[in-house]
């Protein structure tokens, strides 16, 4: 039982380095022992900030209870192919609160994680596109339901970033409403953007939309609303996505992966990677199996260099430079990630 022994050792380390009311990570293989010890060392701050964020003041009795127990610290992983793996690189970055307080470790993904995520997205694409529009709408609505149910957790995560409690609550509500918005559009955008075209021959000529395919999304700095606003229209239209979360607040995105995983979203439809833009964006933008890019960045140089990489297979590129995502919702966001198929059907004169 080498593994059991390893985790036991790690647990002991946790108890040694942490002092009163600290969180500890007790499970897992010995291989990750160092990271886990690291997690435990900064565990105290996490516990306090998360409790504060939830608006709970520790009463005397709870403080006593907390002192008796080592709280369980969460390992933040990425979301790929409906599973929660670590980065293949084994590396991690530290998520910090605005005042520099460490909040948690998050995976620092490599280009190989990007490659694996694209493989998962490609494998899921045909099945997702084949779902009825109505079913995709149901699933998007289900995401909204799940997000609503975990709103307190997301408010806490946002408040641990730089949002006031009111702003955090407003952002979670807006993100939930946005999902409902796109849930409603899944079986309607087709009617709006398709057309029957007059032609000067004996043909019935019509144009319909089809999903572009695999969409790479560079997620915006806005940790939840921006992420949802950029991803939801892509999947509403039958695309699958690889989302790069490179902003200063990755924790809401990582947790959003858990929401997706419990919302009937098939594995691979949304893949969320955390890490550094300069490492992940170029391989994603150049990847020949990615059909479109949504670049949520206000930096024209970042957008330009990604667009240059995107020429290899003529990707569709949508740049979204918004800083405030409050009003960024429209069926045109769906149409931007669609291809138009025109059919000439012979008819008698």
């Amino acid at each position: 039982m080498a593994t059991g022994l390893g985790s036991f050792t790690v647990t002991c380390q946790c108890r040694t380095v942490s002092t009163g009311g600290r969180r500890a990570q007790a499970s897992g293989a010995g291989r990750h022992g160092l990271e886990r010890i690291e997690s435990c060392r900064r565990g105290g701050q996490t516990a306090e900030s998360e409790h504060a964020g939830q608006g709970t003041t520790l009463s005397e009795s709870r403080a006593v209870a907390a002192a008796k127990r080592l709280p369980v610290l969460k390992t933040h992983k990425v979301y790929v192919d409906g599973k929660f793996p670590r980065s293949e690189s084994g590396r991690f970055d530290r998520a910090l609160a605005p005042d520099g307080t460490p909040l948690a470790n998050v995976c620092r993904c490599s280009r190989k994680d990007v490659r694996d995520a694209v493989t998962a997205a490609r494998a899921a694409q045909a099945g997702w596109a084949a779902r009825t529009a109505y079913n995709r709408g149901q699933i998007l609505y289900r995401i909204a339901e799940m997000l609503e149910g975990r709103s307190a957790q997301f408010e806490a995560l946002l408040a641990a970033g730089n949002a006031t409690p009111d702003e955090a609550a407003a952002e979670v509500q807006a993100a939930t409403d946005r999902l409902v918005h796109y849930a409603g559009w899944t079986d309607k955008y087709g009617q709006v953007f398709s057309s029957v075209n007059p032609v000067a021959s004996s043909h019935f000529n019509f144009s319909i939309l089809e999903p572009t395919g695999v969409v790479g999304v560079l997620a915006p700095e806005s940790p939840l609303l921006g992420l949802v606003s950029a991803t939801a229209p892509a999947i509403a239209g039958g695309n699958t996505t690889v989302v790069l979360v490179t902003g200063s607040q990755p924790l809401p995105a990582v947790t959003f992966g858990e929401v997706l995983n419990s919302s009937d979203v098939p594995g691979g439809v949304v893949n969320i990677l955390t890490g550094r833009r300069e490492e992940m964006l170029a391989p994603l933008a150049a990847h020949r199996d990615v059909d479109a890019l949504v670049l949520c960045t206000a930096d024209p140089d970042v957008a330009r260099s990604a667009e240059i990489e995107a020429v290899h297979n003529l990707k569709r590129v949508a740049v979204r430079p918004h800083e405030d995502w409050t009003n960024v919702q429209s069926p045109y966001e769906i149409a931007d990630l669609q291809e138009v198929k025109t059919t000439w059907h012979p008819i008698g004169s």
Partner: protein
Amino acid sequence: MEPHPRTAHGALRGASFESPSIDAVGVEERVARLCSRSIKKEAKLQALHLTLSMIDLTTLEGADSEGKVRQLCAKALQLHAALPDLPHVAAVCVYPALVGVAKRALEGSGIHVASVATSFPAGQAPLEIKLLEVKRAVEAGADEVDMVISRGRFLAGDYACTADEIASVKEACGDAHLKVILETGELGALDAIRRASDLAMRSGADFIKTSTGKIKPAATMPVVLVMLEAIRDHYLRTGRRIGMKPAGGIGAAKDAIRHLVMVRETLGQDWLDPDLYRFGASSLANDVLRQIVKQRSGIYQSFDDFSM
């Protein structure tokens, strides 16, 4: 009740030799160690090229037509138009009825035509019919014959029958190379796989091959390691080099490279040659091509960019 065919020492009723019993845990550990090798850059590119030259491009479907076989042969002749300097594959593997089509399409290219025979994939036919099938395939121009053993007989402990069958097929092959498919997915334990390997090599096989591709699991790493060790022991005993062909389930270039590492470490450099090692695969070639282009261009590739 019939006694179990195996005695305490691993000797077999009806077999004139003993095969060693296999330590399954040891095999798993050895495979895990070999799979952890990191092959990158130039070495990877070299391994990918070698893999291409070892592929038996295969189509074995009920729906195979002359057109499908001609298309496959065209692919064998030119794997990727953008890379004309690639090595060609080792062989094209088809059903006996389509050997003539493949032979004509590949004339003068140096690419062999392999044919499955002996009532592939089940092998449940009378011996004379199997032998006739082999003869017809060879007459039509097959350079290599892939036969299946009668797993039912083998599992029942009728080793003499299995050995005789292989020997008569070898005779029917004439100059054509004989690959013996053990269908390891139906043999169960690694002990039986080792025994079948020994039996096939002693009965005249030029190659031993894991699977038909119709049964899962097919060419898993532990199975291939056991067969490679059987080949090594046979070589040490007789000085005869037997080839190996894993088939089925190897779809990724990465898996192929792992196989090459295992071959190199078990049998040595001599076996890293299309004459002694083959991959039976239908989708492997395109993944290898994808990796070669990625290695040369630095850009991840799409399957859409490669021909069927």
